[in-house]
């Protein structure tokens, strides 16, 4: 999909004024977050659950190459075909090649973030192959050409009138309605026919089990089940970090994923595939293709700090608790992943140079970290990206700090190292700031400090610093701090 991370500020500004966005952001993230909190609060051991799933994810990242090899071996033994894709193009080409080779008239897709990352829909359209998103939210965003607003509710912010119009135009709806349930029924009728005659279904993968070569998907609508049950060919795409060591681990992760995501003990449907349909079965795919996608991950894996971002399971809990996401919604993040999840993943996968606002649009409140079932320390990672960007790290496409910043930091280092200079300069700065005092406070400052002071009031600086008063007290003076 098209990368728009550089338009972060612009989009965020527009979204702050968008009334529909405001309406949904006031309700939706809090509701999902509330469901998550309630589900955990009803369990006797919430912290243990989060810690345990974080420990599994930590182990996965450390043992990644072994687990992938084991997974591949077992998936092949189950009869699946495993294809390794270095980048999005290779994965897209494989799917296009397969669709052409088998002559399928169209493809149906289950909701999958990785295919957003790959730009699969665009690649298929370019190749002249029809593709239908089948998750209701994804179906709507596809018809309208919108990016996902929230990982759980991609079209949650789209007004019903807009859905009505596009369904009338493109989804065979005959009777106009703005009732959400009736709109859903119209999509059901339209997509049901697609499911019935489906010959190739494409899905993502939530968890891949090394021990058994099994892949898991979880969903609420049933569209993924159709994509895996009705067609002759099933293609499931996993990014390489989606693997888990054992069936017991994977099943546990699934639970913590669902709890974190929507507060459900389990999504309405979970499917665990170990190979294609067997002789005698009436449905299920004859061919199961599993694509393992790298797309830059093995490079970023080299850095032990950055690597921890790969723990992410895409539950979306961090979005619901983020004060920044809660104001601006999903669009400004400009790519497949939004919220704190997007702030740590997009910069790694796209480069620090085109995503600087993402890792800076963070208050470092750490709420995301406390709800993350994978044990990711988002804020530490974002600080690390800022540092790497300032240092001009080449691997991560850091830009290097701008000259004025560098000069300022040099000056600071010099001054902080020299007590005499520090005293003189700080005294000068304090006195200069006091020039702007008005009614007992400094509410604006010029130059570099303008932006900072526009939101903050300072009390005027006292005439004597703490050190000076201390010294005067020691000498027996009264050390009053009056101006």
């Amino acid at each position, binding site marked *: 999909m098209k990368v728009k991370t550089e338009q972060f500020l612009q989009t965020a500004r527009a979204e702050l004024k968008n009334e529909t966005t405001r309406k949904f952001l006031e309700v939706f993230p809090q*509701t999902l977050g509330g469901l998550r909190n309630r589900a955990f609060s009803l369990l006797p051991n919430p912290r*243990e*659950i989060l810690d345990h799933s974080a*420990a599994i994810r930590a182990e996965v990242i*450390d043992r990644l*190459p072994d687990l*992938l090899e084991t997974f591949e071996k077992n998936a092949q033994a189950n009869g699946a075909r495993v*294809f*390794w*894709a*270095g980048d999005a193009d*290779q994965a897209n*080409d494989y799917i296009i090649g397969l669709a052409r080779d088998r002559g399928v008239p169209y493809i149906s897709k289950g909701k999958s973030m990785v295919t957003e990352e790959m730009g699969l829909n665009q690649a298929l359209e370019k190749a002249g192959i029809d593709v239908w998103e089948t*998750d*209701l*939210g994804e179906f709507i965003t596809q018809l309208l050409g919108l990016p996902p607003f929230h990982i759980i*509710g991609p079209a*949650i912010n789209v007004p019903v009138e807009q859905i009505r119009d596009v369904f009338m135009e493109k989804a065979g709806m005959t009777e106009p309605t703005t009732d959400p349930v009736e*709109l*859903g029924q119209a*999509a*059901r009728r339209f997509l*049901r026919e697609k*499911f*019935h005659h489906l010959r190739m279904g494409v899905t993502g993968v939530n968890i891949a089990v090394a021990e058994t070569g099994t892949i898991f998907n979880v969903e*609420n*609508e*049933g*569209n993924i*089940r*159709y994509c*895996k049950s009705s067609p002759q060919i099933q293609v499931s795409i996993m990014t390489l970090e989606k693997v888990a060591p054992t*069936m*017991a681990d994977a*099943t*546990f992760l699934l*639970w913590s994923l669902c709890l974190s995501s929507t507060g*459900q*003990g*389990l*999504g*309405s*449907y*979970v*499917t*665990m595939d*170990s*190979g294609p*349909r*067997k002789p*005698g*079965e*009436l*449905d*299920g795919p004859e061919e199961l293709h599993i694509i393992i996608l*790298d797309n830059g991950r*093995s490079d970023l*894996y080299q850095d*032990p700090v950055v*690597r921890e971002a790969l723990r992410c399971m895409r539950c979306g809990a961090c979005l619901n608790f983020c004060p920044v996401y809660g104001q601006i919604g999903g669009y400004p993040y400009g790519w497949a992943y939004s919220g704190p999840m997007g702030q740590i993943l997009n910069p790694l996968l796209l480069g620090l140079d085109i995503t600087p606002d993402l890792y800076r649009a963070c208050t470092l409140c750490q709420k995301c970290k406390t709800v993350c079932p994978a044990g990711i320390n988002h804020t530490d990672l974002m600080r690390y990206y800022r540092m790497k960007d300032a240092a001009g790290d080449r691997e991560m496409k850091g830009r290097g700090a701008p000259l004025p910043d560098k000069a300022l930091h040099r000056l600071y280092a010099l001054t902080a190292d020299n007590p005499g200079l520090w005293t003189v300069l700080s005294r000068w700065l304090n006195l200069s700031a006091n020039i702007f005092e008005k009614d007992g406070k400094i509410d604006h400052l010029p130059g570099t400090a303008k932006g900072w002071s526009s939101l903050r009031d300072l009390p005027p600086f006292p005439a004597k610093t703490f050190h000076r008063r201390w010294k005067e007290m020691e000498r027996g003076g009264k050390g009053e701090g009056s101006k």
Partner: protein
Amino acid sequence: MGRAMVMTENTRETILSKLRKAPHKGVPARNPQPVQVDPEIDRPALIDLLKEKLTLVGCRVFEAQGRKAVRGILTDLFHQEGISRILASEDEVITSLNLRDWAGEQGFELKSLSDFETPRDYKEAVFLEAEAGLTGVDFAAASTGSLVLAAGPRQARLVSLAPISHFAIVPLSRVVPDHQSVVERIFGQGERPSQVFWITGPSRTGDIEAIINLGMHGPKNVFVILLDDSTG
């Protein structure tokens, strides 16, 4: 796809060797996995938990003493819901109910998997004709009210998905405490089913204005009949 094969072999080696050459710090041993349900729970409490969770996720729960009672409940429910065309799987639970004669007597049109000559006929029936899908279950996990079915020649996937109503028969002997009990039993030994599917309530979405809409793509109604099979 010859070129793709060569490409994937090289790509595979590149990816794996990069992952291997990166520094690995090792990970400490993990604590034991937290459990979903107290392992000491007794059977009656477990069944109660299952009923509570099934209801919570939106299933309608019925209880039957023996197989005859199951047929009675089905008769009532089908009449009540105006259902006459039923597609049934042929798993042990369903076959043990001897539904053929019953359906004939009651005037229901009952089709089973082996009635279809081709997968195409079966798909026509499951997508266009069946008003209800009827299945047994392999297990029911009490911790989350989940029905677990393993695909096979006698358990097709779409029967519990495409018709707007799903009727599931759950013998109490197949009720287990939690997810781990299910996967230990299914994946612990022997051949793995091509697909294991878990059903926790009806198909649902909240994708338009966060309004909950049941029966989005799958069944809107899930009826669960708990069969007390302890007396044989």
